[in-house]
């Protein structure tokens, strides 16, 4: 069985920067194309669009909004998919109940905000309670079927059916939206110039503050996670466990404790993402499958078990979804799916995965 030994590590296996430099040396053409794409994107965002371009792509406002929406949605997808990929990387458990954990977190967050009127504690409540649920699952169920990957996956499918119905029972089929707190409500002026009016007045893009803050938070979480995995002792143990679980257990590490911790943490991340999703969009039955699917596609694209892969995959899928829904509404879903198909066809192990 091939393994993805890449949690926290960039391609090339070294520290991030060295790996990236190595990649440029190995793939000069790809690096050139990547640079060109970034430059083009920057130009599209910063330049005053000529008329010709507006005829092709529509208003600049639409394009830049789609770009920002895609990036921030990618941040949300990253939060959901990280837990999924982390749990898989260490325990080989494809947790198809991950979407249920996300939805559960969303409902818990909503209930907290309703009860206390405070937004930030909702994250804490969702994280702790969903992490507890994950811990119980790992200790009561998955520990007893270690090594039986298919059976574990089937169990997670059964659990997702049961959870979905229980949540439908408790919270009903309504849509809930977690209200944005006052200090985050409203738009913020970005330095991105949309248009220069004939009278010399400059029009800047206004963008919802809460989305930017949440995106910044998810980037922060991603960086902290990367540091935790690459620079701390527990992170070292996790990396060792991803590479060779048996050997790690044999060297006296309390591996069951490690498993329980990682499962709880991954589940907690999904729960927190639920609060984010509830503020961004809304929570309702069916969102669990939607986010499960998103996580699946993200980790298939990025590389199962790889956190940088999850970040890249989340960004790509978020962008594909937003640009798809703006420019080709009836075929939006095909876009992210097409990315998955292309990755599977040319690099089946995922973009940022070293086998």
């Amino acid at each position, binding site marked *: 069985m091939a393994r993805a030994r890449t949690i926290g590590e960039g391609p090339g296996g070294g520290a991030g920067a060295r790996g990236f430099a190595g990649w440029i040396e190995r793939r000069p053409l790809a690096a050139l194309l990547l640079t060109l794409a970034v430059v083009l994107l920057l130009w599209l965002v910063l330049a005053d669009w000529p008329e010709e371009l507006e005829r092709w792509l529509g208003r600049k406002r639409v394009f830049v909004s789609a770009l920002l929406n895609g990036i921030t949605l990618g941040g949300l997808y990253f939060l959901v998919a990280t837990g999924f990929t982390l749990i898989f990387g260490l325990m080989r458990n*494809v947790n198809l109940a991950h979407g249920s954990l996300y939805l559960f977190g969303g409902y818990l967050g909503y209930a907290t905000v309703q009860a206390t009127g405070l937004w930030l504690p909702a994250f804490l409540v969702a994280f702790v309670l969903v992490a507890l649920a994950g811990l119980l699952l790992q200790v009561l169920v998955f520990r007893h079927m270690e090594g039986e990957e*298919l*059976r574990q996956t089937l*169990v997670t499918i*059964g*659990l997702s059916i*049961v959870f979905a119905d229980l949540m439908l029972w408790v919270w009903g089929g309504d849509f809930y939206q977690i209200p944005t707190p006052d200090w985050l409500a409203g738009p913020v002026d970005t330095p991105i110039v949309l248009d220069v009016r004939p009278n010399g007045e400059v029009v800047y893009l206004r963008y919802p503050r809460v989305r930017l803050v949440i995106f910044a938070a998810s980037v922060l979480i991603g960086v902290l996670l990367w540091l935790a995995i690459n620079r701390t002792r527990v992170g070292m143990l996790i990396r060792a466990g991803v590479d060779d679980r048996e050997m790690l257990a044999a060297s006296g590490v309390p591996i069951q404790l490690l498993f329980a911790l990682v499962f709880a943490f991954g589940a907690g991340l999904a729960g927190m993402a639920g609060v984010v999703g509830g503020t961004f969009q809304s929570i309702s039955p069916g969102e669990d499958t939607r986010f499960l699917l998103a996580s699946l596609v993200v980790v298939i694209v990025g590389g199962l078990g790889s956190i940088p892969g999850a970040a890249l995959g989340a960004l790509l899928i978020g962008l594909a979804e937003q640009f798809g829904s703006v420019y080709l509404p009836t075929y939006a879903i095909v876009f992210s799916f097409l990315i998955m198909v292309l990755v599977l066809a040319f690099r089946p192990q995922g973009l940022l995965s070293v086998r």
Partner: protein
Amino acid sequence: MALARPGPPPATAAASPASTAREAAIPPAAWITGLVLLLMPAIASDFFLVQVFGWALILGTIALSLQFLAGYGGMVSLVQMTVAGFAGYMVAILGSSGLTQISLGWPFWLAVPVAILLAVLFGTLSGALAVRTAGIYTIMITLAIAAAFFYFTRQNETLFGGFLGFNGVRAPVFWGIDWRAPVPFYYLCLGWAAIAWGLVVWVVRAPFGLALQGIRDNARRMAALGFDVTAHRIAAYAFAAFLAAPAGILLTWLNGQIAPGTVGIGPVIDILVIAVVGGLGRPIGPFVGALLYVLLRIFALDALVALGLSGQRFQLLIGLGFLVTVLFSPDGILGLVERARRRGGGASERGGGG
């Protein structure tokens, strides 16, 4: 119900230990089951015939295609319901339906084979994608394909009719028989289920099926022996799609419509539940699971309401049943029955010896 019964203990075999292998291969329970199924229209009402047995046979056939892939190929594919639904969609698009601006109105003898062909193509392509990576990835990739197809049909108005899908898709009338009438439709379902079952039983003993089982057990060794592992796996997906596609068309005819709900995540998972609960070990398992599922689906509502719960808690029942099966009897009801029989058989043998 006839399917679910384990059958009478093989008293004849116990009486004459020198029974031939051929007799042992076809147990009397199978003969009785077959006979009961053939004569079913004489005893069952139209409702039972179509809504219970017809539906169970259709779902069983789709689940059988999953059982073939999972049990003999080691690939748990969640795309089988999607392949079936794809065939249903194709029949609605190519043949006639209530959505006259989309349906092409081809005659059924052209629409049905082309629909099956396209669905097999779809299943083969899905398989080709899924076998790019092995093991546990299969379940993820096929689930992603199934979900993408579901969301696509729901979004796409121009070709797939959007959220409402197609209604008024009916079984044809030919040879002077109205195939949408209960008795002919029942035989149609029974006929394809029997053919599909027979095909699976035959294929798993044919060289291709044996090679597939070899690949399931040890892909590396089979590759070293010169077998093309990828080609065998993709061929298995094509064969499974060929089993599922006609069943999907029958399902569309049974419901009279095809909509995104038919290929949603729920039904996709239900097919897995049916196959696993019935038992992935043998081709008859999915049919046992399907009958149980259909009976639950129809009668559990009343039972749930009687217990003071809302009838909507059906999914909870299905989920719990699936969990209990996976946790306590991973080889499904068939495995349970077999173990019970072995225990019973062992006891009687000991009794006879003493």
